[in-house]
């Protein structure tokens, strides 16, 4: 069936696939107008829009089910607890974890990484040890490791990449030593779109007994994730980038890993018993969920997972591959445009620069045409430095985007030339 949605990239058959046309209507914000024009939302790597089902689930929770979880003996609290733990089971199924207790609800991918860096790092890193990350990490997979390395006297090392934005696996192999205590790698680069060979990276680390954390923030909206197939030790995602609410994310960890780690934060809900002399901690996942959690967020995330599970991912993959090829080809027709990040294996995230025009000027000008793109360093300053650019413009496509959206971006870029001349 997928071939029906594949077309040669240069053909301007701008009619969206039927699947996409109906799905767009699920996202109320996509009907917004900006500066009198229909919104063309191409900043999905920053945050995705939310389907009505997610918005409704959150509203319904507050209207009909709001109570604190894991505490009350009254029925409303039991319902809230069941809904919250139900969301955890949905998250388990979404990532294909073995057990629901391997899913920790966190605020975001950033918090998931901080949790592991802090908790795993405190007990496993010492002077002379090394943490290995890649050259294309988001700041959120750099800074937490820098902080813990500084605290523990450990060293942060970096897997280099080539000019296409692909990891150099031989260099990776060379950096795996007896000093390496953990590898932390992005699944899909937010600024380059590169899809990393995570399974291969994990296998090589595991051959030396080294655990691997995967930042899956940009992968979850584009592809099914199977943590057992990847065999990674930790995998973390943000709800808001996968059509769920902000303020909620999930951290998957293999149960033995999580059980061996000390708590990240202390507080209510994460204890077994407390005296002034000594506290014993709850089992996972509660051990890592101190305080009242973001109950509405978890339920909204569960609704997003339900929504995503109803999509035909074969169609989504074909549609997004078509958008990537079509938009890349059309952007290259624009004089002065150069793509940054040209990996063979890419998600529908396209960074580009316009010769002689700063990305922020590009962003302001296309916004006037209703086109929302991200401009700047995308929280990946080392990537910008590697490619020798101060900033890029980035168009990131979700399954609800269309070829018409790419056409609108290209048309808006013509205005950049009008303003700047040349």
């Amino acid at each position: 069936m997928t071939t029906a949605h594949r077309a040669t990239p240069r053909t301007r058959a701008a009619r969206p696939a039927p699947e996409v046309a109906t799905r767009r209507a699920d996202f109320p914000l996509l009907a917004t107008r900006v500066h009198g024009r229909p919104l063309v939302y191409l900043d999905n790597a920053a945050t995705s829009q939310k389907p009505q089902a997610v918005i409704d689930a959150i509203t319904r929770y507050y209207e009909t089910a709001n109570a604190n979880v894991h505490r009350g003996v009254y029925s409303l609290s039991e319902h809230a607890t069941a809904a919250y733990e139900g969301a955890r089971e949905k998250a388990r199924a979404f990532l294909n974890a073995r057990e629901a207790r391997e899913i920790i609800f966190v605020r975001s991918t950033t918090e998931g990484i901080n949790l592991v860096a802090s908790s795993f790092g405190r007990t496993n890193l010492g002077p002379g040890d090394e943490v290995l990350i890649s050259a294309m990490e988001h700041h959120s997979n750099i800074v937490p490791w820098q902080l813990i390395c500084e605290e523990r006297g450990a060293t942060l090392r970096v897997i280099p990449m080539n000019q296409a934005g692909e990891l150099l696996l031989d260099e990776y192999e060379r950096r795996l030593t007896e000093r390496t205590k953990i590898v932390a790698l992005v699944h899909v680069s937010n600024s380059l779109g590169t899809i990393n060979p995570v399974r291969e990276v994990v296998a090589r680390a595991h051959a030396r007994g080294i655990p691997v954390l995967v930042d899956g923030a940009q992968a979850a909206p584009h592809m099914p994730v199977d943590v057992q197939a990847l065999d990674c030790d930790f995998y973390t995602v943000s709800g808001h980038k996968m059509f769920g609410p902000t303020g909620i994310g999930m951290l998957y960890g293999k149960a033995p890993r999580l059980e061996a780690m000390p708590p990240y934060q202390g507080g209510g809900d994460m204890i077994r018993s407390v005296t002034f002399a000594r506290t014993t901690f709850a089992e996972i996942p509660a051990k890592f969920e101190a305080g009242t959690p973001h109950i509405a967020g978890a339920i909204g995330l569960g609704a997003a997972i339900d929504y995503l599970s109803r999509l035909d991912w074969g169609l989504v993959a074909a549609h997004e591959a078509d958008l990537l090829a079509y938009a890349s080809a059309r952007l290259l027709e624009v004089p002065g445009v150069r793509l940054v990040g040209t990996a063979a294996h890419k998600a529908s995230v396209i960074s580009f620069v316009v010769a002689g025009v700063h990305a922020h000027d590009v962003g302001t000008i296309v916004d006037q045409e209703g086109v929302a793109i991200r401009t700047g360093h995308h929280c990946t300053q080392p990537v910008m430095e590697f490619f020798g650019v101060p900033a890029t413009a980035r168009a990131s496509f979700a399954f609800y985007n269309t070829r018409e959206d790419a056409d609108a971006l290209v048309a808006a870029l013509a205005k950049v030339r009008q303003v700047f001349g040349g």
Partner: protein
Amino acid sequence: MTDLTELYQQTIIEHNRSPRNFKKLEHANRTAEGYNAICGDKITLYLRLEDDVIREIAFQGSGCAISQASASLMTSAVAGKTKVEAQALFRAFHDMVAGGADAAADPGTLGKLAAFAGVRQFPARVKCANLSWHTLRAALAAAAEPVSTE
């Protein structure tokens, strides 16, 4: 609806393309750094200040058209001015791009700097226009820390 030609006036486009006073000042006795981390706009400002008069001023940097043109036009506007006069221009410029509705500046006092009047319609870009001015204020105050307008 906001109008792009209000923001990207010819004066701004032209100063971005050929910035004035774009060099390192070898005999500077004041320098200051401005850096907007989120944008990546960067500027180093060099001054030769004598008897509270800006005898010479130059800058180097990189960034968007608004930030670069603003630095170019600012250096042209304050060269030869006293510290007090430069500070008055700073206030007038700031009022023009970011002040309240009643703070619209008298275009007469601002001269070519009035080209930035359109920036106030683009709140996300005010920090770009202001960066060089805040850096000037830091240089005049001999501040050591880099300046940001974010």
